[in-house]
């Protein structure tokens, strides 16, 4: 064995990187929103002790622009929160938008095709009246679709602004999932039931992601930004008010 290990020259992993932190950008254009947020942070190198507190990039190092299909550009301006920037623009469904600029001296580019309008056939109407029961989840059938969206995700936001995952159970499945990447756009939502004392209204927020956003929010975390790692994606959005009865 000793001979073998010496022979292989590899008693330990070889070639592990000792990289410096890199720029991480996370920007999502949301149809219907007046402004679009972008987060700029430093990554945590994998070979160093993990630091759970985000390391925002100083706003003086960020010069990013959102270019509309018309050619108009809007600067991502600091919002005042660490590492957070926003660009005010009306995002048109089905159009292509570009990101360009520099972050910490590095040139950054990306582009995204915005999904079409998210049409929710079920649950119908703007308000969903839902009976409470003893179960931890309430099942609500859904049918929705947005052109060129490749994944959907739903959240429950309660009256205090606290956000919960809504599980999506597709018709073909017998198991729950929180993220659907199949072309099926109908199934059952498993909405968390409110606990006792929680306000009796909430919002059901549904996002239909373009493929790059779908890739970024998937378990493999795919990036589409050149010059940095991260997301410049787009989503169609729909909201329903939930009234618990």
């Amino acid at each position, binding site marked *: *064995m000793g*001979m*073998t*290990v010496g*022979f*292989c020259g*590899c008693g*330990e*992993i*070889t*070639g*592990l*990187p000792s*990289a410096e*932190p*890199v720029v*991480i950008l*996370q920007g999502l254009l*949301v149809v219907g929103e007046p402004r679009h947020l972008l*987060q700029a*942070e430093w*990554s*945590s*190198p*994998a070979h160093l*002790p*993990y630091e*759970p507190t985000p390391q925002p990039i100083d706003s003086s190092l960020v010069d990013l622009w959102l270019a509309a299909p018309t050619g108009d550009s809007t600067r991502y301006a600091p919002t005042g929160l660490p590492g957070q920037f926003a660009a005010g623009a009306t995002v048109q469904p089905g159009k292509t938008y570009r990101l360009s600029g520099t972050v910490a001296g590095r040139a950054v580019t990306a582009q995204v095709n915005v999904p079409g309008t998210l049409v929710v056939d079920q649950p119908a109407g703007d308000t969903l009246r839902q009976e409470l029961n003893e179960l931890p989840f309430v099942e609500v059938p859904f049918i929705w679709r947005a052109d060129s969206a490749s994944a959907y*995700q739903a*959240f429950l*936001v309660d009256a205090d*602004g*606290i*956000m*919960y995952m809504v599980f999506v159970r597709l018709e*073909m*499945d*017998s*198991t*729950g*999932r*929180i993220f659907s*990447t*199949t*072309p099926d756009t109908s199934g059952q939502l498993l909405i968390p039931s409110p606990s006792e004392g929680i306000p009796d209204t909430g919002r059901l*927020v549904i996002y239909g992601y373009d*493929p*790059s956003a779908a*890739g*970024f*929010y*998937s*378990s*493999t*975390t*795919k*990036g*589409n930004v050149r010059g940095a*790692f991260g*997301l410049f994606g787009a989503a169609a959005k729909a909201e329903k008010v939930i009234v618990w009865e």
Partner: protein
Amino acid sequence: MGVTGYGRPAGLAAVALFIAAPVLRGQVPVRGSVLTRETGAPISGAVVTASRSRRSATANRLGRYTIWLDSLPDTLRVAAIGYSPDTVAVHTAQPALRVQLSRATFLLSDVIVTAPLPGDLDLGSIGRWELPLAAARAVPPAVETDVFRALTLVPGVSFTSPLSARPLIRGYDASESSYRVDGFELIAPYHIGRIFSAFPADAAQQVSVATAPGGVEQGGGLAGSIDITGKTGTSDTTGGGANLSLASSSAWLGGGSSLRWFGAARLVYLQAIELARGVDVPYNFQDGYANAALIRNGQRIGRVTVFGSRDHLADRGEGQGMDWSNVLVGVRGTALNRGGTSLEFSAAGTRFANDAVNVPARSSQLDLHNRFSRVEGGLDLTVQARRSRLALGLATGYRAIANRITPRDGDDFQASDRSFRNLEVSTYAEWSQNLGAGALSLGVRGDVAGTTSVWQPRARIRFPVSSRVTAGVSVGRTGRLFHLVSDPQSEPDIAFYDFWLTAGREGIPVPTVDHATADLNLTGGVISGRLSGFVSRARGLVELRPSTDQDAEDFNPFRYGRGRTWGIETQIALRGTAARGNSVSLTYVFSRSERSWGGEGWTPWVQDRRHLLRLLGQIKLSGRWTLFGALEGISGPPLTPVEQIVQVQHPGAGPDFTGPRVAYVHGPENSARSPGTARGDVAVSYGFTGPWRSRMALGISVLNLGFGPVAPVLSCGIHGCGRGKLEALTASGVEYRRAFDLPAVPTVTLRMEF
């Protein structure tokens, strides 16, 4: 299946005879067959050497040979691995010379060299290894002897871990090789988790590994082919046996005279096997093999092969389980065998079916529905003269593929539903010629389906370097009309999934590999050895995009690219005498295997193993006791390191949101390397006479004696570490751990033959 058009090949035979006629004059052709004395089974690959004429010939799949002698009398020496050689004096021309060889004490060292004399027109031994079943039995087994695991005796074959029975040939995935039973194509011949091959060892007579490019008659494999030859029933009497191990039982029986038959079956039942972490489910499988050969005047006219296997894991009806099965029926026979001309026909049908519900794959759960079926009929014509041979072949087949994958949970796989049906035509032509003491063969093979075709020119040459050293060189192209895409590192998951794609359609490339390989064989004496070198360049390879690929701009779950490999294999053996039965074999391989996907730069292939060292030994302790030992050290496979950690912000999420928040950013693909692995195996065998004068053998073995870790290293955390989901991050950063721990595997087997 319909084998038709006999008139056309007969016409070809007439043309070939006319071409060969001038070189027939003044020569004496001797035809015959080489069979085992015990069962009368043909010995494929047996070498017949004429001492005066200084020529040799190699027996084909039916044990037949044709050798041209300068004059009579002459003396033929007939030899094959695992058998005592025999010598036959030939004084007069004979219509058929049948030679029977007796089994000899098997020596591990004998597996190394199969090279016949340079004058043999059969150049198939270049890059080929032959393993009689005795060789497979010499390898310390896990649970029981396995015909694929036994390929550890072949330097060009490696495995991803001791949990795998998928043979990787010279830097290519196991799915890029072809598998055959009695020469008939078989699809995915595996049992649970690809830990066992689907062919019962008790039904095998020998296994051969032919590395690419091989002869033009071989198609369907990019890296090589593995061919299992089944046993034949005992001549003029009925013989059989049984085998018991800790988890399986098998039995075989055979006999007959003019209709020689053989059958074997194996049963395995496990009450619980771990499908996923903490999920134990029942598992059982059955497999069987049978053949029947028609004998006339001591000559084998034809043979029918039947193989089937069935696996049942858990219960799909109850929400989770997998069932798969394999069926093969093939027939091969001789339509004409006159002078130096032979015409063989073959027909076969094979079907693989796989249905799974809610099985784990990477970090997802899948439903699967796979069907792969093929029927084929073909003709092979050989015209042999004294110093030349012409081989022609034509086959036509129909291949149907259905491949449906439905993700239930997780996002490693996209839903897919593919179905293909192809009419395929294959043809080949090869001319072989003696050149002085050497031999040269030139040939071309064509595989055509619709508008897609792969033409594969091949050339082989063998020549003597000295009286004991022979050199062989083979160059050529391999290709095929479909892709079988598997996860190259599936352990420790025991469920398996495959993707089948038709090449040449929908932007899917046609895979071709250009190979060059050279052998230097040292034969005879106490020391034998083999030095091989190989190099290849591949185009149109397809691989499942790895989960570490984080490029969001490419949505295709598959990726297409090129490959390149090269390596040197050395194998040296000290050969004991047949009486003492001691031998030791040392193998060292240095190889590299790289891929370039989507026009990017070259990266190590995920199973690229740079160094491989194997030591195999066999000691006959007494007349009854034999001890086998094996040591293997191998470089670790590459791994894609985690370079950065990021926090994913979901849209609109505040600090109280409890969704997935931490993700890895991986560094360059396969830029790091896992530590090496090492293991030792030992087995002891005790032979004795049992009831009714049966031959009994008790085997005790321990696989993986604990010389070192045997599994590759993976990163732990977000996507789990091996099978389990571990704590994501530690105080020292991202943690890497072995994919699994494998304890020592003890095995006890009891065999009885009568």
